[in-house]
């Protein structure tokens, strides 16, 4: 089959590789009809996530048709149309029983590697380095889906691929980020990052009843999308407005937002001169894995007693973490890879009911063979790129 393969920093290519086969009784094989490039794929592309290996197939947002199932899979049949959640979860362990699917205790066969870096292993993830299991990803014609009786959700009506594809990651991820904020009505929520996940965090905060949602980014066309499509009430352009913490205070009568969502992660692109330069150097020389301007500012801007919600991906260690502000303002931090399986059904219902149309983020539709162009366009934000969908 054809598959998008990582072959070093800033290099992906579409190559011929063997077709996947059933390895376990609870596996299924999916013939992929639509797949997407995620912002977090750029961390792999840029070479900031450790334990990548040449030849790794990328991609963790995909959907398609079941073409084979293992003996123990009774919930799916050949021909079913499914969206596959990015975390691989067994459904049996204590974490899965408590709907903490991204903390699955059994799905990462490289648990020993992950334990060395994170203290504990977390769930396996498709196409996302060997730390998360070394599973082949879904930017390909076919993928093997382990524990297929737990993860994939069947799509039985005439919703298009693009309407449901983002149930695999970015819609639930953005939604969980907003849910972390404990919105009860009347809140001001600030969202750092108006990329695809940020857009869904904004839209979800609006759906959950936030009174004002402030989008923050340095890319003007993404802020426009946040305001016009996702429902942000205010925007801050980091290029134009230097001190984001002051800006946020000004927009909130000095209080600070009730909750702040970090939808940026480890490659934040702005910041104060000296600190920004030092961090870029440290990251380039691998003495710091995570640059952190968004997370720092989220903590500094959040109102006392508020919540900082971290859904942007970090991979290791970050310096200059504002512990003083965190502690003295009494903030709560909630973070995590999304427990996608928990949200797929309710969010599919929202899509069916017409409460949200997730297709608004799609700006580029390419064939699978154009994946390399897709990565470059997305990375450099060319051609007003927000979200790239690939069709094998």
């Amino acid at each position, binding site marked *: 089959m054809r*598959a998008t*393969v990582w072959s070093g920093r800033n290099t992906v290519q579409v190559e011929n*590789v*063997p*077709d*996947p*086969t059933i*390895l*376990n*009784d*609870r596996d299924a094989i999916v013939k992929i009809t639509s797949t997407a490039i995620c912002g977090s794929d750029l961390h792999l592309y840029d070479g900031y996530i450790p*334990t990548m*290996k*040449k*030849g*790794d*197939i990328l991609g963790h947002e995909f959907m398609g048709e079941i073409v084979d199932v293992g003996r*123990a899979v009774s919930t799916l049949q050949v021909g079913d149309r499914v969206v596959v959640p990015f975390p691989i979860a*067994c*459904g*049996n*362990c*204590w974490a899965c*029983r408590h709907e903490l699917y991204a903390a699955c*205790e*059994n*799905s*990462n*066969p*490289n*648990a*020993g*590697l992950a334990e060395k870096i994170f203290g504990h292993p977390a769930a*396996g993830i498709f*196409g996302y380095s*060997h730390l998360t*299991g*070394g*599973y*082949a*990803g879904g930017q390909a014609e076919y993928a*093997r889906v*382990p*524990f297929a009786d737990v993860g994939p959700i069947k799509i039985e009506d005439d919703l298009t691929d693009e309407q449901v594809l983002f149930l695999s990651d970015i819609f639930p991820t953005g939604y969980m980020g907003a849910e972390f904020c404990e919105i009860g009505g009347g809140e001001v929520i600030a969202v750092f990052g108006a990329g695809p996940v940020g857009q869904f965090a904004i839209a979800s905060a609006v759906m959950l009843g936030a009174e004002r949602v402030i989008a923050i980014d340095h890319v003007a066309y993404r802020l426009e999308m946040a305001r016009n499509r996702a429902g942000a009430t205010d925007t801050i352009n980091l290029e134009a407005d230097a001190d984001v913490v002051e800006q946020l205070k000004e927009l909130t009568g000095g209080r600070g937002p009730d909750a702040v969502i970090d939808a940026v992660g480890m490659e934040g692109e702005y910041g104060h001169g000296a600190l920004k330069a030092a961090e870029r150097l440290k990251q380039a020389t691998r003495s710091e894995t995570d640059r952190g301007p968004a997370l720092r500012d989220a903590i500094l801007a959040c109102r006392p007693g508020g919540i900082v919600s971290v859904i942007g991906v970090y991979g290791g260690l970050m310096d200059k973490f504002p512990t003083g502000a965190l502690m003295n303002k009494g903030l709560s931090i909630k973070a995590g890879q999304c427990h996608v399986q928990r949200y797929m059904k309710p969010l599919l219902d929202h899509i069916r009911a017409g409460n949200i149309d997730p297709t608004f983020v799609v700006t580029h539709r390419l064939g699978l063979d154009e994946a390399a162009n897709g990565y470059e366009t997305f990375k450099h934000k060319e051609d007003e790129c927000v979200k790239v969908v690939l069709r094998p």
Partner: protein
Amino acid sequence: MRAKAAITVHRARDEVRRLWESSEYQPDYIEKADAGVTFRDAPGDRGTEIHVDLERDTSAVRKLFAAPRLAKVKDELRRFKQLVETGEIARSDSTPEGERAQRKLKQRPAQPLQASEREKAGV
């Protein structure tokens, strides 16, 4: 060098002990290693803790090889937990045999296996 490992299995203690001793589930390496194995009820609904202590064997040679032995013990604990809880060993393209300490530094790329590789990995 600490030579202890533990894992929690989401099952009652009687069942965990019975499976541990059954021919289908028994972790061979741990059983042969003359390790101290104890089973304890985990708090709340968390199941059963299995504790393995390799320090019981105090010979100097054994102590020298404590680290690789411990890594193997951890692999076996994880595989036992996976089998009991999910009915199968988690396999990925990079690690088709399932968790193995030897694989940590010799990962396959994350792309599907050729038929010959599948045969070698026993899947």
